[in-house]
């Protein structure tokens, strides 16, 4: 069985802070990590490999620095690591990202593609289903358990807000997995010492994928960022000394204002 896991290198958003003076996001010094949902995807694939002798390929689109994330995948135990990197890819929205990834997937013709449900920087959850659409593959999202029935058939648990479905899906197919599906393993020391051997991360640019540059990057992206802003400096809170009824109303209003209700 050949399994591709799509992996994104993301800034550790839990470390992102807002500059209290300027109200801008401080990205400096924030470390880059493998997106947590993708890490669970890797683990899910490696567990299949542990039991069933699969070939696991980590696939990422990103700048050259994403090489590090792929070395990490190698140290965790993947067999191949491929980085799709080209200036023409830069500025891609989810539509273009999924287009580029799907072309690489097509060239590799796997039995199973696993994506993390969503990335912590964008939180869109779109790339997985969109890859499946580009390739006309059956897909199941929000997966919290994978059981292999045979090389041709999987039974997966698909989560909803109020329950789950048990679904049988035939390969080739694409799954997007939740972080809860497993606890990812640590990199293995011996693999770490081998991870930086030259040529271990295969670099594919657009000459391999063969797209018209006009359909790629910012140009090819249907969506554009018009503006972005931080919510601003967190101002000192207000303290109210009021009767209980009014206090309750103040709290309820604040919850509404923050979309908690």
């Amino acid at each position: 069985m050949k399994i591709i896991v799509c992996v994104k290198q993301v800034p550790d958003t839990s470390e992102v802070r807002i500059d209290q003076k300027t109200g801008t996001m401080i990205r400096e010094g924030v470390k880059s990590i493998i997106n947590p949902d993708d890490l669970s995807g890797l683990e899910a694939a490696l567990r299949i490999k542990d039991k069933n002798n699969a070939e696991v390929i980590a696939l990422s689109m990103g700048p050259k620095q994403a090489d590090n994330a792929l070395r990490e995948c190698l140290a965790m135990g993947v067999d191949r690591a491929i980085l799709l990197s080209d200036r023409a890819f830069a500025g891609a929205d989810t539509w273009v990202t999924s287009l580029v990834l799907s072309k690489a997937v097509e060239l590799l013709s796997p039995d199973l593609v696993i994506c993390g449900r969503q990335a912590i920087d964008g939180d869109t959850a779109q790339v997985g289903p969109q890859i499946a659409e580009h390739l006309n593959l059956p897909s199941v999202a929000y997966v919290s358990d994978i059981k292999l029935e045979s090389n041709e058939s999987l039974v997966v648990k698909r989560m909803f807000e109020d329950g789950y479905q048990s679904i049988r899906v035939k390969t080739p197919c694409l799954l997007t997995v939740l972080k809860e599906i497993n606890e990812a393993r640590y990199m293995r020391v011996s693999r770490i010492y081998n991870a930086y051997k030259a040529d271990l991360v295969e670099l594919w640019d657009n000459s391999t994928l063969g797209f018209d540059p006009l359909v790629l990057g910012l140009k090819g992206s249907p969506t554009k960022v018009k503006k972005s802003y931080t919510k601003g400096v967190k101002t000192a809170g207000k303290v109210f000394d009021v009767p209980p009824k009014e206090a309750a109303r103040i709290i309820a209003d604040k919850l509404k204002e923050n979309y908690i209700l």
Partner: protein
Amino acid sequence: MKNNKNVLVYVEQRHGAIENVSIELLGIGKTLADKLNGDLYACIIGNDIENQSNEIGYFGAKKVYVVDNPILENYINESYTKSLTKVINVTKPEVVLVGATALGRDLAPRVSSRLHTGLTADCTSLDIDLETNNLLMTRPAFGGNLMATIVCPDHRPQMSTVRPGVMIKPTRDTSKTFEVIKVDASLTKADMNVEILETVKEAKKLIKIEDATVLISAGRGIGSKEKMEDIYKLADILTGEVSGSRAVVDMGWIDKDRQVGQTGKTVRPDLYLACGISGAIQHVSGMEDSNLVISINRNPQAAIFEVSDVGIVGDVNKIIPELIKELQK
């Protein structure tokens, strides 16, 4: 695709019940349609769902497109994608709105890809740029640290998934007139490209407090173990979890694995509601990165107020029951 400046809302139903977010979308959808001088349309997909189409009309959709077919009994993204795409092709809307649910966030990406158009996820605010008539889709990114406004200028329809609970529900009005239109999406058995073996409804499982988006946290100030009942009730209403300070753990009012602070867990939920917690440094270090901190404490000098967005001076045991009443309205 020639567009008529209309807005189409995908109304999500599972097991025959319409999702709240879909009703909310009918509200914002109408606002956007008015700005575009167009109409609000809705689309509902499923099996044996005809009686829900009226309900959608009462909430303001002028035309309700229904794809009703036994094949659509369970959600399968292929059959639903095919159905929604068909309705979009028939109605040619300017804007398509989908609830950002576990279903909508799977369905919308496939539909947008099939239509080769843009999709913006998890929007918390939508508006029309009156100059260009473009939809302005604003959403949080970077773990909520950044807000971004996204446009989709050259592709139609402009698609967006919208966070539940953000938009205001329109009022239900049974005197409204509307048209129900059946759409045949030419579905075949082959569109059921996965096999649903079992559908299970289950109550929400216990989650780890580090993962909770809402935490109602109890401190010594609540006074007794019995008063924890109100805390749990409030957490239930806000679909959150209960946590506490070391003091309430030591007194056995809650379990150790719910303790926040130096010797407990570090949490950063969207809402941290501190009830009767004084805010000693070893507690604050475990929760100060929470997005919104609201605290209730009898002592106006309590340190917890220093890290709170909203502080309420008063008796937590009087305020919480009032808050529960207020929220149940």
